[in-house]
């Protein structure tokens, strides 16, 4: 659905994009991960036809984002990382305005407005002024705006930034719903936990280039080393010592009842490690792989790229 090849963009002497290449299949929820300044926003702005690349090519749905701006705009919904709202409009008027800019008017626009407000959970706010909404509501309103022309592709730049945890969960539910609706979604974020269970595909960006991309499982399989946490009722030192002896285990760290270690190998190997601990009579009450799987990978990649 989206194909990006060798995209370059310079801002003065700064090389924002340096041969950015990736592809997003139809219907995928693509997590675009990278630190601030890695080139995520620049890439999304080029895809949204707001910025012309210096070199390379990008196309969405078969349309080149430079040569076929108009067609691309018809099939994308874009939500920038920072955006403003017209504070002198009501929520309903706001959506009707954007419907108008997409050439939708009259009864169709009003029906669309109500449907979208329903979808993003703002139906009861239709007559409220936009600036009376909370940040999370404005974010959802902006998402509704991006959906107004029923685009096949959504480009969302940090859709959950600046939101409190509750609003963040609501936003995530909404994004999941969009994925179920069969839309191709590109979500950029520097917070990995946010994307880990939402995406079907990820691309990890560093210094204007995608360093890893593919289906989440494939990427995770690549992540050889994961961090595990074990809690025991007693004898954490003995557990630590035992772990040191296991194959694939590195960097054992004992803190009170909590033992943390790095493990390289498949999940079967991890199970073997656990079995080994239990066999030795240790009262294991907790054995888990750390939540931020992608985060580990991300940190790992960051380190390995910095090292040479």
């Amino acid at each position: 659905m989206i194909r990006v090849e060798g995209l370059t963009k310079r801002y003065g002497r700064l090389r924002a994009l340096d041969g950015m290449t990736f592809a997003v299949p139809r219907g995928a929820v693509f997590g675009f991960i990278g630190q601030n300044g890695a080139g995520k926003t620049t890439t999304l702005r080029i895809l949204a036809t707001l910025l012309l690349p210096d070199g390379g090519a990008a196309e969405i749905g078969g349309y080149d984002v430079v040569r076929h701006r108009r067609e691309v705009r018809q099939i994308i919904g874009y939500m920038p990382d920072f955006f403003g709202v017209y504070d002198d409009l009501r929520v309903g008027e706001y959506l009707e305005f954007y419907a108008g800019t997409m050439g939708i008017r009259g009864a169709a626009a009003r029906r669309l407005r109500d449907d979208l407000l329903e979808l993003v959970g703002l139906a009861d706010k239709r007559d409220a002024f936009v600036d009376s909404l909370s940040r999370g509501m404005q974010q959802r309103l902006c998402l509704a705006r991006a959906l107004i022309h029923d685009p096949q592709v959504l480009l969302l730049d940090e859709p959950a930034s600046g939101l409190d945890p509750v609003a963040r969960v609501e936003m995530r539910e909404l994004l999941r719903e969009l994925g179920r609706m069969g839309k191709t979604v590109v979500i950029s974020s520097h917070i990995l936990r946010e994307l880990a269970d939402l995406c079907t595909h990820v691309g990890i960006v560093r210094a204007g280039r995608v360093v890893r991309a593919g289906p989440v499982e494939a990427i995770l399989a690549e992540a050889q080393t994961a961090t595990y946490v074990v809690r025991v009722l007693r004898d954490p030192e003995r557990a630590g010592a035992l772990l040191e002896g296991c194959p694939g285990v590195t960097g054992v760290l004992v803190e009170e009842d909590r033992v943390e270690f790095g493990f390289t190998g498949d999940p079967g190997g991890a199970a073997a490690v656990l079995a080994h601990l239990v066999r030795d009579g240790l009262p294991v009450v907790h054995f888990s792989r750390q939540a931020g799987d992608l985060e580990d990978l991300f940190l790992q990649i960051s380190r390995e790229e910095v090292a040479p």
Partner: protein
Amino acid sequence: MRGLKVWWEDLLSGVRPMLAKELRARSRGVRPAALLTLYLLAVAGGISGVLWVVTRFFGALSVQVGLWLFTALVVGSTLLLAVITPALTTGAIAGERERKTLDLLLVTRASPLGIALGKLLSSVVYVLYLLLATIPAYALVYLFGGVPVSYVVTAVLLAATSAVAFAAVGLFFSALFRRTQVATLVSYLVVLFVLFGLPIVGEVQRSLAQERDPFGTRPQGGPLPWYLSASPLVALDSAFQGPEGEGLPLLGDLLRAMLGIGPMSGGAVTVQAVPGGMPATTVYTYGPVSVISGFSGSRGSGVLPLRQTYVTLTPGGELRVVTALAPWVQHLLISLGTAGVAVAGAAWRLGGSGNLRAWLRRRPRVPAGP
């Protein structure tokens, strides 16, 4: 053909919602009512002031009172609109940029030209609304009489078109500069220059021409340089000539002092009939600019004649009749032209340049001819 239809639809996708939104937003709150009130108060204050001055210093009401009042109204509302109008548009695009709403607008179907036009139209509608509110005040002029309806119609037309031009200039700078403050500053400098700077430029140019031609080998008089008509004040003054060639009171005297227009010889001269054109007339010559037809085409209604006839004095002492577009027509054309260029420039800055580049890249490259 299909391309034209798409272009038109994209234009409307910008103009229609933008106009609706801006008008809706502008009509909210106390600001519009306050602005209208202030505007009308200023107009009322001006009228009262003129009447007070006239009665105080000229004793009884003279026959000129109608014309005095008319001048005050026309010049006053033109100046007021010149002050108000740029303020309505300088925030139009820079404000969207500052509030970070511009990107959201640019990814829609609305074309940059549609967006710019929608912004311009919304402020023009607002300005026309102010102008409309002053029209009843012109009724006062008729209490004293002495001013044909054509004057009023032409004056309102002039004020409206110069307001449109000023609005478009504000819009252009709003698109050009990132910040509203800069756009506002530059717009007001330009407005000030057009209003008051242009007459000075005209004066400089005139005296330079005189310097270069000390023996008077070129014909004297004739129409003013066309670009001076860009200033609504010059256009207003030279549009309204009394039966004796004098312009508007006060303003006319001021501009005449600046441009060196003034009675030279004075006196009636008979001009031969021009075949198929002017009938034989007796005219009053003033130099360098003399106007014959101030009244001839206006029969108390409609607008002033589109062309004006001037008498110039050749070095041989002959009088020659020259016709040219009337200054107010020139002003109309200049204003609308400026507005068109400014809106196109704003659209270009908004993303039209990228659109054009995209369109050019889209054309298959045709190899150069043999």
